């Protein structure tokens, strides 16, 4: 049976502009989760839960790390939490990145944009346990928003891109693809325009993308978070996704 958890807040840190890293204690979730899965957090005073991806787990310590950007009242309230408080959480939710068909020796492209970087980092750590070559392209608005560059560098050949060129390469993530060289498959998470550009650019390559939509239930029951698929039907981001084959969905 699925559960509802009280997760204790261990740390809350601002690691980039408007960007909070929060560590939570919950051994079960820490041990069960797959990269790409999310937590569905209840912030008191709000009707709906907030979906936030898991960025990192330390199963031994029983911790789960999330990263979020302050965009509205819910994330603002969450950012004001302090260590020792509890967060009401459902999860790990959704279907994450399946890495079973990643074969030894493959070269893998990871593309993260903004607050889409955290689940890609989780994935990168898992993939780094396999004998594969990782290339990460990370896009941010500007220098102030950059985070996790060093963490990525430890496990992947890393390119940082900022829209305004204030750090790393200038432009969009797709602009550095020519420099990246060949790769076997790709994984991506980020804002919709970025994912559209990435999937168009790489339309002939096997890829998986993680998507966002406003959610009602977050468990697959209400049909709020649907996405049209190429076979003229709908998939639910909260339960069929958030990760989909790039070939399967219409962005």
């Amino acid at each position: 049976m699925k559960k509802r958890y009280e997760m204790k807040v261990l740390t809350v840190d601002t690691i980039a502009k408007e960007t909070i890293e929060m560590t939570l204690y919950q051994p079960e979730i820490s041990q069960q989760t797959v990269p790409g899965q999310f937590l569905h957090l209840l912030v008191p005073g709000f009707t709906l839960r907030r979906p936030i991806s898991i960025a990192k787990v330390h199963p031994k310590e029983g911790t789960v790390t999330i990263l979020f950007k302050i965009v509205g009242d819910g994330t603002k309230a969450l950012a004001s939490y302090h260590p020792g408080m509890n967060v009401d959480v459902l999860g790990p939710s959704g279907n994450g990145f399946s890495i079973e068909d990643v074969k030894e020796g493959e070269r893998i492209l990871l593309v993260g944009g903004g607050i889409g970087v955290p689940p890609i980092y989780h994935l990168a750590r898992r993939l780094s346990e396999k004998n594969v070559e990782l290339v990460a392209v990370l896009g941010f608005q500007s220098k102030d928003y950059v985070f996790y560059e060093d963490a990525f560098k430890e496990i992947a050949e890393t390119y940082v891109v900022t829209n305004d060129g204030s750090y790393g390469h200038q432009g969009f993530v797709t602009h550095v693809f020519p420099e990246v060289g060949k790769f076997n498959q790709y994984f991506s998470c980020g804002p919709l325009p970025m994912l559209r550009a990435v999937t168009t650019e790489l339309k002939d390559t096997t890829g998986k993308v993680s998507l966002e939509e406003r959610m009602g239930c977050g468990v697959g029951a209400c049909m709020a978070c649907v996405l049209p698929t190429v076979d003229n039907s709908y998939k639910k981001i909260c339960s069929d996704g958030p990760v989909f084959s790039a070939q399967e969905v219409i962005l």
Partner: protein
Amino acid sequence: MNLEVTLPGLTLKNPIMPASGCFGFGKEYSEFYDLSRLGAVIMKAATQFERPGNPTPRVAETASGMLNAIGLQNPGVERIIADEVPRLAGYDTSIIANVAGSFLEEYVFVAEAFNEAKGVQALELNISCPNVKEGGIQFGTDPEMAKKVTAAVKEVSNLPVYVKLSPNVSNIVAMAKAVEEAGADGLSMINTLTGMQLHLPTGKPLIANQTGGLSGPAIKPIAIRMIYEVRQQVSIPIIGMGGISAAEDVLEFLQAGADAVAVGTANFQNPFACVDIIEALPETLTKYQYTSVQDVIDRRSVHV
């Protein structure tokens, strides 16, 4: 404590059921708890054919509430009867089918189809879905139309029919009386209030369908008022809903005139909402000196 209630066609072990559209066909919530604990399950709306629903975004959050414009996405009545009903019938709970449509013939078709669905014990006639553009809304705001569709469905159905009323009307009592006259076995109220939220950066409606249905605690005072008003003048049973999230809310609905209740939006905040409420209900009733659910119903004052 005895939580049982008896309504036309339904003997419920407790008065709590998930509201239509907020619980799918129960599959997802069955991963959180045993659905046999529920008084009944009201299934998501069924239409004649598969419906893809509205474009996204389909939901928005509001103060103590939410807007939705799912647009009746469902696989069509045949597949619901084939795929969903049998699984739900495996639980020791009652099944109520929510019947929707864009025109009278569709309601009749869907209602008739459920005659053959083993396990379905009642129909909830959704004449009020504000998200259906083609005409559903008219049934829900015009007493004559509501009468017509109720009578037509009663004519073909073997099952008790609960008509779900829209709160977007000047006179809820007129609507209730109309469907009672047309032979409705019960009422289900309230559906959502039509609302809108704008996306400030664009100045356009946030929900792709423009308007959405407002649900959640924000609408509870309107639901209570409407149920109270209807209860003074109409005698068929009422399944009450609109913002229920705790056992106290259930008591308030029963006192106002409901005979059972449905829980919608609260499931999204707390997937255990229905069972948490069922668990808390005996203590709440005791606190207010009631000995059973039926006791609340018996002792409420109808001030005609």
